[in-house]
């Protein structure tokens, strides 16, 4: 099960991140996970939200440069070595992680991580086959 991630192009300007978050707030969209990849003059804000369609609508209305991509949200045991085990599965199956980041809150005993793979479909199947719990879009919405 793949979920939607929204990427927003952010120029390095005071207050810009807050403006983006306010737009989401006004649209009743809740951020579940986020990360910022940044360079000297700009950044890319990546996030998983409960209502991706509503978020994209809000961004379109405000002419924010945003794009949707598919990522995989994975439950990782919140114990020492938990993440390593999941990563081992990926390595053994020759799956490349482009980047990853954690959810803001914990919803179960497990930690929830977002993975971006170059082949999300294969990653999803492989993780499932190895008994790793992959979280679906519906789960995110109802978290």
């Amino acid at each position, binding site marked *: 099960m793949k979920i939607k991630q929204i*990427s927003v192009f952010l*120029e390095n300007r005071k207050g810009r991140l807050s403006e983006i978050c306010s737009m989401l707030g006004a649209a009743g969209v809740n951020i579940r996970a986020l990360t910022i990849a940044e360079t000297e003059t700009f950044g*890319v804000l990546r996030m998983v939200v409960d209502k991706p369609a509503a978020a994209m609508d809000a961004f379109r209305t405000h002419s924010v*440069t945003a*794009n949707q*991509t598919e990522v995989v949200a994975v439950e990782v045991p919140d114990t020492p070595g938990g993440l390593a085990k999941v990563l081992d599965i990926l390595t053994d199956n020759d799956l490349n992680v482009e980047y990853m980041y954690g959810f803001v809150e914990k919803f179960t005993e497990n930690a929830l991580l977002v993975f971006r793979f170059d082949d999300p479909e294969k990653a999803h199947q492989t993780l499932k086959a190895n008994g790793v719990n992959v979280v679906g879009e519906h789960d995110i919405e109802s978290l």
Partner: protein
Amino acid sequence: MDSMFWNRQVETLERTALETLQLERLRLRIANALRTPLYQKRLFRAGITVPEDIRSLEDVRKIPFTVKDDLRQSYPKGLLAVDMKQVVRVHSSSGTTGIPTVIFYTQGDLDRWTELLARGIVASGATAGDVFQNMMSYGLFTGGLGLHYGAERVGLTVIPVGGGNTQRQLQIMKDFQTTSLHITPSYLLHIHGRMAEFGINLSDLSLKRAYMGAEPHSEPTRQKLQELYKMDIFNCYGLSEMNGPGVAFECHCKADPHVWEDAYIVEIVDPATGEPLPDGEIGEAIFTNLIREALPLLRYRTRDLAFIHPEPCACGRTHRRLSRIQGRTDDMLIINGVNVFPSQIEEVLMSIPEVGNNYMIHLTSRNGLDRLTVQVELYQKLFTGDLSQIDTLKGTIKDRLRASITINAHIELHEPGALPVFEGKAKRVVDERERL
């Protein structure tokens, strides 16, 4: 101290006599101009059908302006006012912006131009016995040959080295005890940094002065170079349309160059309205060439912004002084010595689909080097969310700009709508460089 004047009579001519001379010569040039189709049409339209229609010097304002494009449109011989058999020299601009502009000279034209340079050289204190190393490039460019003939007329020993080859330049300076240079400020700065490399000390040289031109520079730059070389530096102003160097030349007072007003009518006008501005106010410098018959140019718009000093100079010359160039009315940028038009940058940006329509050009300087920053907006629909995409895009813009304008630009990407939007004429260039 007559040694400081080449032609004391003309250089110190009383203003009214000078203006009478100007009017007389203006009529001669009107007569030349009426022989070219372009001026015939324009002057007729302005009610000038014979030279005598110019009744006073104020009547110069009846004459329509001439612009650079008129020269381009007239390429190659459209503005030639004499028989080609009378032409003894041709000069031309490099034509980096398209069609070159061509200037013709009769022998009389060259003689009159050379006289102006002789005046400038003598005003700087140079005389027979001085060794003059001309480091401006020779050829179609007027800078080399202009000073060359002026220096010969005064009786200096002329070494026509031309530009480039720093090691040879320094060797010649040393071996021939060069006293006077003609050089651009950037080359003069450059050479100083390389003297040690070639084992030359300042004490090995006999430099007394340099004539500096072809590039706008500031007073602090002159001061700095004077300190570095322990010599006097004189600012000279010129443009090929007005013959070349020597339109205006500094005297020993070094308080901005005297425009040889028996040879040129200089006006300062508001670049937007074309209306004349009083002395002391900055506007566009307009020149009428009073001494060239082969190719008359009347009220030529230089696009150089400057002002005329209202006060007389301590040297006693009555010819008024033109300030340093304060800017340009057109938009050509000179970035690290390279001529760049914003339109070239725009062309590159607009050929890349991921780039939006709005952009800004920022110029800053650090340690004497210019830095070009191009700010562009990312085209919303082509954003994929990938950082690598953006890096690739920046690389693409940088590479294509370098291919087009030969300059390494710093690229800044912005969100759509982040850059200023202009109503009417866009002001996309922000030049924050310290002026040399």
